[in-house]
């Protein structure tokens, strides 16, 4: 990291990676008193070279490192890779498998948004208990994951051409019970936190991202939809079963931290509706197609885009007729949003105390931005 000369009245301070709200990254702040003039993100603390690792694995073996790109949202990340592998092998995924994929993805999205919301409440400094509440509520989802896939985290559940297992007996009823419980909890969260005066003064009119800047800087996911632009890959390019489900894209026009928080909040509501619909209407049928792990993908290139909890993920897979892909380019959402975060200080007046609130409203996940 080069450190250019700075003016004498401006101090450069390091925020993270040991700061409780920063996660595995370091952010350099140029501050004049309380005011932040410039943000410089120093990424790469968790760089593992996943793109290189994937070149040395079979298409099937690649699911495991990809799944670890974002632990809290692993289903949404791995579905991008698996959809690209489906295309590379030319596999037709059965309808029931697509519905199960959507179910797991929506559960993963709620898990991810709940985590983000808990951190957001904690970052404001007034609601440290909320992170514990959301953690307890995430248990409902983790139990469902365990029942379905056998693992609570990082479950490698998707296969090219389908999913590993069918829904176990009684699973649909458990999903509906979980949905009803979470709906009740969200009413509490809304009243206790989102409409709380203390939360509002920390979040309203902070870090405004105008729609034109959001597009120009490449914001994605809730950061983009919080600026009123309704781009969502599930609608624009339906994968899995999203074309058959009833739901709508959530946008907010306020463009500030509160708008991004509300987008996540309403998206949880949409995801709960989808979970309920899937549990009630899932079609019968096979859950995977016959597939050999050492199958060779024909030479070509395949690009897929999916919507993760943090935004659009692109997987560009190049195959050369062997069992391994010859290059996999991963376009992660958090890298794009981190750049937006870096530039927000130029677009807004911001103080050091705002930094945790703002970085959590962007919701970066460094394991996925660093790969």
């Amino acid at each position, binding site marked *: 990291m080069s450190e250019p000369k700075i003016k004498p009245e401006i101090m450069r301070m390091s925020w993270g990676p040991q700061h409780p709200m920063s996660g595995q990254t370091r952010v350099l702040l140029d501050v004049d008193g309380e005011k932040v003039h410039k943000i410089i993100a120093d990424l790469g603390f968790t*760089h593992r*070279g996943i793109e290189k690792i994937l070149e040395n694995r079979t298409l099937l073996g690649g699911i495991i490192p990809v799944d670890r790109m974002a632990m809290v949202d692993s289903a949404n990340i791995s579905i991008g890779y698996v959809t690209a592998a489906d295309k590379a092998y030319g596999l037709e995924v059965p309808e029931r498998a697509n519905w199960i994929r959507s179910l797991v993805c929506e559960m993963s999205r709620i898990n991810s948004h709940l985590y983000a919301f808990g951190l957001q409440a904690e970052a404001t400094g007034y609601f440290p208990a909320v992170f514990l509440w959301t953690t307890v509520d995430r248990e409902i989802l983790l139990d469902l994951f365990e029942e379905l896939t056998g693992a609570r985290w990082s479950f490698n559940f998707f296969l090219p051409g389908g999913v590993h297992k069918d829904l176990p007996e009684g699973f649909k009823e458990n999903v509906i019970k979980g949905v009803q419980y979470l709906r009740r909890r969200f009413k509490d969260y809304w009243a206790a936190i989102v409409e709380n005066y203390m939360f509002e003064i920390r979040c309203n009119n902070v870090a405004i991202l105008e729609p034109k800047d959001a*597009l120009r*800087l490449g914001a994605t996911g809730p950061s983009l939809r919080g600026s009123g632009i309704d781009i969502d890959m599930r609608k624009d*390019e339906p994968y899995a079963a999203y074309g058959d489900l009833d739901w709508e894209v959530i946008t907010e026009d306020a463009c500030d931290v509160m708008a991004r928080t509300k987008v996540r909040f309403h998206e949880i509501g949409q995801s709960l509706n989808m979970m309920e619909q899937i549990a009630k209407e899932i079609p019968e049928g096979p859950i995977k197609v016959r597939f050999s792990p050492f199958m060779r993908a024909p030479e070509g290139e395949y690009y897929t885009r999916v919507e993760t909890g943090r935004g659009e993920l*692109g997987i560009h897979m190049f195959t050369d007729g062997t069992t391994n892909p010859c*290059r996999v*380019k991963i376009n992660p959402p958090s890298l*794009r949003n981190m750049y*937006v975060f870096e530039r927000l200080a130029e677009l807004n007046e911001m103080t050091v105390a705002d930094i945790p609130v703002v970085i959590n409203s962007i919701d970066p996940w460094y394991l996925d931005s660093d790969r």
Partner: protein
Amino acid sequence: MSKNNINDFISSVQKTLAEEIESVEQTNDNYVSMVVKPDSFVKVAEMLRDKFGYVIPVAAGGVDYPDENRMQMIYYLVNPKTRFTLTYRVNVSRDDPRLPTLTTVWDGMSFHEREAYEMFGIDFEGHENLVPLLLPPTWKGGYPLRKDFKGEGVE
């Protein structure tokens, strides 16, 4: 993005930019790949942004073809009106990989060009802050995503 729109886009590109591009084709499903001649790299990028509406910078990255002694730099762009992805490509020589930066056209490409710089060794002329993004500042192990990278000598 419907098939018609893709065909319209391809034919309009073939008409207006025939001199500047090497090829434009539909790769799979909904994506168009466009390979541009290195001389008109920035000019066509500006046209894509202003005339064809590709204002969202998604990502950029390289692909290494050691047998053909070239690398390909790929920029992923999205048009917010049609929601349609374009991969904008340019070939560079492996011996002296140099390109003018596209951060002047799409601000959000900054991080992605820094990543391509450290991973493939492509030098982006005119980039304001071309320093490694993910690798440690003391890295001396070569360019990790090139095909001839063996991981030897890395501390």
